[in-house]
Every structure is written in C-alpha cells, then in structure tokens.
C-alpha cells in the first residue's frame, strides 16, 4: 500500500525534533481528525529557510509526509515554500493511498502556519 519512498522516509525521518528559538512555529491537526504535526523553522535575513524541524503524532503517511516536506523546504525562500502543495509532497513520495492523501495536507498546512507565524513576528 505504501511506496518504498514512503516507507524509507517513515523509517528514517529527516529533521525530526524540536528547535531552540525558532523563527516560526506551526501546529495543525487534532486528535479527532487524526494526526497532529508541529513544524519549527529558522529563517535567515534573506527569507531563506535555513533549518526546519517537525514532530508528528500520526500514521506512517503523516510521518513520511512531514519528513519529505522538510527536505523539500530546506534552503528555499519562504515565499516559495509557502506555495508547496500537498500534492507535490505526495508526488515526491511516489504517491499515497487515496485514504491517506490528507496526511500530506497536514504537513504542508503546518508549514504554512509556521511561515505565517514567522511573517507575523516580522511585522
């Protein structure tokens, strides 16, 4: 049901954990709908995401999507990163089973929330 890529990311997730003094934090999800993902970002003066960390409560797809997203985002400008869609995340994972598609959504949304938090703090 899961692609090899999903399984690999699930088993060796990139950028897991907390971050001291993040420039932005986002949290999406709740227990009722299923999964909960937290994303922390560090952004440099040029608006480039220099570091990213996540923590996820959720199924294999949720963890793998979070991991994949952090890989896709690192080194990108926040304006670019905010445009990353759940579909791109799923595609980069070699696809997700239909009933798991919303998991990639969660990761992308948590990132957006973190970027918004970062932008709010800039104001």
């Amino acid at each position: 049901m899961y692609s090899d890529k999903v399984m690999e990311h699930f088993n060796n997730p990139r950028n897991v954990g907390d971050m001291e003094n993040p420039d932005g934090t986002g949290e999406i999800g709740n227990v009722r709908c299923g999964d909960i993902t937290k994303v922390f970002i560090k952004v440099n003066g040029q608006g480039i995401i220099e570091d990213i960390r996540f923590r996820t409560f959720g199924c294999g797809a949720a963890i793998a999507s979070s991991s994949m997203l952090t890989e896709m985002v690192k080194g990108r400008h926040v304006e670019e990163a905010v445009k990353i869609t759940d579909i791109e995340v799923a595609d980069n994972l070699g696809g997700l089973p239909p009933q798991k598609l919303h998991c990639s959504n969660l990761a992308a949304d948590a990132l957006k929330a973190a970027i918004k938090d970062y932008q709010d703090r800039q104001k």
Partner: protein
Amino acid sequence: MDRIYMDNAATTPLEEKALEAMMPFLKENYGNPSSAHTFGREVRKAVEETREKMAFLLGAKPEEIYFTSGGTEADNMAIVGAARALQDRGNHIITTSVEHHAVLDTCLALQEEGFEVTVLPVDQHGMVDPDDVRDALQDNTILISVMHANNEVGTIQPVEEIGRAARESNVLFHIDAVQAVGNLPVNVETLNVDLLALSAHKFYGPKGVGLLYVREGTKVNRLTHGGGQEKGMRAGTENIPGIIGMGKAMELAYSQLEENTRRMESLRDRLIQGCLEMEEAKLNGHPTRRLPGNVNVSFEYIEGEALLLSLDFKGIAASSGSACSSGSMNPSHVLMATGMSEQTARGAIRFSLGRHNTVEEIDYTLQAVKESVDKLRSMSSLYQGKGER
C-alpha cells in the same frame, strides 16, 4: 531471526496436513460434486464426509451444515436470511456495538428493509451484559446476533447465557464464531445457538471457505439464486479443495485445542506482561475472559499504524485495528465502544499469537516494541506536548 507472524486473527498459515488433504482435489479429483458420474460421485462423497465430520465436531447434524465462501458470507446468510424468513413474526433485531462489520453492517443494512436494530453497548472490557440482552427483548424481536469472541480485543462474550435468554424467549440466536473456532470449544448444543458462522482461514484452513450452521427447523431465506447446491441455500459450484482443507484443519484444531490453548495463553500473558511494564501502556479487552492468543495494548502518544510499520521493519507482523479496516482512518469501532478516548484507541496495536509462535519470538518482540515506541514517542507532537505541560 525469521520473520515473526503475530497476526493470526487476520489470517493463519495453512496447516500442512490440511494442504495434503486438499492436494488430490487440486489434482486428479477434479469432478463437480453435482455430476452423476464417477468423477462427480467421488467428490460428492468426500464433501459429505467433511460435512459429517464438521457437524460432529460442532455437535450438529450434517443436514444443518451449509458450506460458504467464508465467514462474511455465512454471517450475511444467517442474518439477512433469518430476518427475511421471519419478517411476518416481527422486525426487531438485537446485536452489539463490538461486532465485526460482517454482522454489524449487515444488521444496519436491514434497517432499509424496515427492520429495527438495537445495538447493545459493552463495558470497558468489551463485554456484553446478558441482562442488557434480556432488557432489549421486545415482542417483535426475531433475532439476536452476538459474536463469540471479539477479533480485535479478544473478549469472550457470555454467549451461553445469552443463548439461554434467547431460547427462553423463543428468539433465534446467531453467533459469529469466526474467531472462536480453533481457540475455544465451540458446540452448538452447549451454546444454545440456532445459527453459527465460521471461517476456515482463521483456524489454519484455506482462505475462501467457511460454513453456516442452521439448526434443523430454522427457516432461512437464501440470498443468492442459481444451481441447487447446498440444498438450494447456497448456489454455485463449491470450493471443493477449500471444503476438504477446512474439514482437516478443523479436525486438527479440535484435537489440539487444549494443548494449544495452554501454550498460547502462556505466551500471551508473557507478552502482555512485558508490554504493561512499559511506560503508559494499557491492556485493551478483558483481563481474563480473552482469546488465548490475543494481546491488544494501547501505547499513549503514538499511532498504532506507525507502530505496526515500525515493527514490520523489524520483521514482526502485527495489526492496528482489525485487518479489514486497516485502510480506513477511523479509530476502531470496537475500542471506541469500550469508552476510551480516540487518542488511546489510535494508539492500539494487536498481536494475535498462533500455534507457531515461540517464547524467543515473544522476547524479541518485546524488545522491538520498546525500541519502536520510544522512537515514535520521540517524534510525537503529543509526547512533546506532554513534556512541556
């Protein structure tokens, strides 16, 4: 170490002796049992011998046994067939909130045909209270359907007592014995049942074959139409190798029942014990009245599916939720029915032990569970949240 299979409630490996018994029917004995010639008669004879054997083991008569394509078909035949046959007498059906979907969804689908369905609650261990069954009985109640043992949490229901209540009120009683057969002594007389479903692949028989027991004199409408097989009750050319293999598997299961039960209970208790020694772990299901191989534990702050996949990487096959619905995102309806939080329900993992498991496998599994739980918790947004609080 070889891969470790601990998902015997989802399906079991086919017993070698059952496969041996099937082989002639996969090769030279290929006749259609409905055929009048020798090829057909030879197969008919073997099928009827299997029917007699299985009837005997269940405490039934051969005429009361109908072969099906599995447990689901048998459950559907029993419930829909009996309900429709009795709709002149009443339209009320009683079942429970922890049934397999093959029973629960079938009962609920009957609502569209005008039947009224009472879904009984269970206690925190997943047990039905026979008094609740008695209280739910109405003048128009025609059928009670309760599972013998639960596939997810392993709780063994008080089916004998419910059977007595049904008998006293003259209401048909169906049990879904899919998880019970091979694990418990199942006998239609001592259990007071009128209808009983079982599935071969749950007791080391082949997949795609099962059986419905229908007590003599019980009217059940047929669901499918076609040839006159199984006295018109179940049309379609029979899965002959399947039937033969099922008979052999059942014979073995019954003859080794006590010995296997004892072995599995001791492995089960060792695994439960080890799990509960870990931080914030909780046993689901009944502490004592549970299937000999069932271990269902919730680990807080993590997701059962993630734990399952993590264990799979370590070569261990387990399940989160029931096998059939592991594709769905909802927490198990069985666990929710026991009154736990969604988060705890989602943290559940089921190990269902079988004949082939060993003490070494249990100990390896405990080690693997500990590592996996720790790793997943270290990644969990909830565990973190807890630390902060």
